[in-house]
């Protein structure tokens, strides 16, 4: 468990979060903390509460009980855009890019600062922001698609564009929900490398189903089950844990076998 030892102050801390939808507990008494620069994978069977857990952090869903603390401030009661401006970026499960805008304009919206109506009307991007947009396009290999409508990209390209938008927001914490769903093996490997390279400067939390991908990330793994943290550890430790085998990996192995 050495990889989980906290070196200093936590960047994000979920304290005893409970989310109840009309009595159904999507999350119950969930505790989790992330240290700055950490790369963390979250897995769990369907319905484990993975997406609700991101909804709570990003302000989309208010927890019934508990508190979310980011950089020492509680996030409760803050609207989504304020939480985003505090430095939390989110990539959605199915890629959500602005389909009628070009690839470049999608990235410009992410990179642009400040995000107020008046400054958008009168100002322009500065040179370093323009460079960043071009840099992001080259990272995700879309520089030849700059003027294409984002809606005309392939699924994998949209996934990457959204990851690039997320990076362009320059958040301290990146929440990445199923980044490799529907990607080819090659694209999956590249995505894993990209996320690993982002960790360190950023804190990255990845939710994924793809076990090979998680293994490639070489990161600590948190297993969610029925809205609760079942266990944490390295991929090997987690896969060896009998509780995990019972609720999740065991059934997968049976299916495969």
């Amino acid at each position, binding site marked *: 468990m050495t990889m989980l030892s906290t070196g200093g102050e936590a960047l994000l801390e979920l304290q005893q979060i409970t989310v109840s939808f009309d009595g159904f507990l999507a999350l119950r008494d969930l505790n989790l903390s992330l240290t700055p620069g950490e790369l963390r994978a979250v897995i769990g069977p369907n319905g484990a509460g993975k997406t609700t857990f991101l909804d709570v952090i990003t302000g989309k869903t208010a927890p019934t009980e508990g508190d979310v603390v980011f950089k020492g401030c509680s996030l409760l009661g803050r609207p989504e*855009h304020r939480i985003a401006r505090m430095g939390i970026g989110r990539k959605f499960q199915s890629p959500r890019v602005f389909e009628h805008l070009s690839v470049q304009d999608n990235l410009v*919206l992410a990179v642009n600062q400040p995000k107020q109506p008046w400054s958008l009307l009168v100002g322009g991007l500065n040179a370093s922001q323009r460079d960043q947009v071009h840099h992001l396009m080259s990272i995700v290999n879309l520089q030849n698609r700059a003027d294409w409508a984002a809606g005309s990209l392939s699924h994998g390209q949209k996934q990457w564009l959204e990851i690039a938008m997320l990076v362009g927001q320059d958040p301290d914490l990146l929440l990445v929900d199923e980044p490799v769903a529907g990607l080819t093996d090659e694209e999956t490997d590249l995505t894993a490398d990209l996320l690993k390279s982002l960790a360190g400067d950023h804190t990255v939390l990845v939710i994924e189903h793809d076990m090979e991908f998680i293994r490639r990330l070489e990161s600590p793994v948190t297993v969610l089950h029925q809205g609760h943290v079942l266990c944490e550890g390295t991929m090997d430790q987690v896969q060896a844990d009998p509780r995990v085998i019972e609720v999740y990996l065991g059934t997968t192995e049976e299916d495969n076998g």
Partner: protein
Amino acid sequence: MFSSFSQRRWTIVCLWVLIIAVIVAAPAVLPVFRLNLLGRFLSLSIVALGIDLIWGFTGLLSLGQGIFFALGGYAAAMYLQLSNAGDLPNGIPEFFGLYGVKELPFFWHPFASPWFALIAIWLIPGILAAVLGGLVFRNRIKGVYFSILTQAALLVFYNLFNGQQKLINGTNGLQTPATKLFGQYVGSDLMQRWFFWVTAVVVILIWALLRWVVRGRFGDVLIAIRDDEPRLRFAGYNPTLFKTFVFGLAGALAGIGGALYTVQSGSASPQFMEVPMSIDMVIWVAVGGRGTLVGAILGAVVINFAKSLVSEAMPESWLFIQGGLFILVVTALPEGVIGWFRGDGPGNLLNRVGLSRPSATYPSLELDGQEEVQP
């Protein structure tokens, strides 16, 4: 790629040459009656431009623009009524006599000033729109619920204005032709010619203003709101601010359109706030082309001219033609006429009626130009 781009450019240039030619030639060619109609329709196109901003770009379908249109019209008419009230008995507008009102209601007083009136024409509807819109957007009410609320607000204002005989002449409205501006009767041919010119210039200025607003990053945010508003929040933008701003701007534009329409049609009345009027405004934009700006102008002018010509020849048939037009746009031209020209117009239409071979829908196949998909 390049040829289709420059072709598009040419279409737009030709359109503008046509529009400016019509505006310049109209006073020389058209009899005053027709010129006055064109001036009115250009005033309506200002409202349509506002609707294109909030609906075509931002995705807010308002069925209540008549409120702001009427407020602008009333502001202009109140100033005109007061501007020559000094010659009248009691020194107040004539209609007050019908209801035995001896003293000018308090809210009329500021409208004696031309400067106040000039500002009130756009500022009052603009602020009202921003306040109403802001309250609705803050509560994240959108889609059809927003449309229903705007229509409900329209009915509230319609009934309110209809019932206030003693304050604003109720259902009769405020008449302007017999009032004077710069020593001339507002209804005179000379003034009507001037109103036409003013309206034409204002339309072009507002078109340029809106083009500046929708080009660039601000316009991209509006389109992002239309396409995926929740996603935009997670990118750190507050859509409520942007929506409130553009809805207020569209309200202000409707007010300007209403004022110019009032002086050219001769009265401001609660009929401006009848439900079909506000729905017509939306149809002009839908037919002309959402998200194109110039389509809003063309839609408003062409449809209204068609309406007046058809109504002269066959008074009963206009509603059927308008209904047919709307069905045509919804089924065959969802992007409107201008949107149709900008996109793959004729080919797309042939596709829709099943006359041409369907092509691969995946755009990169067409653009790469290498793969052919066999049906």
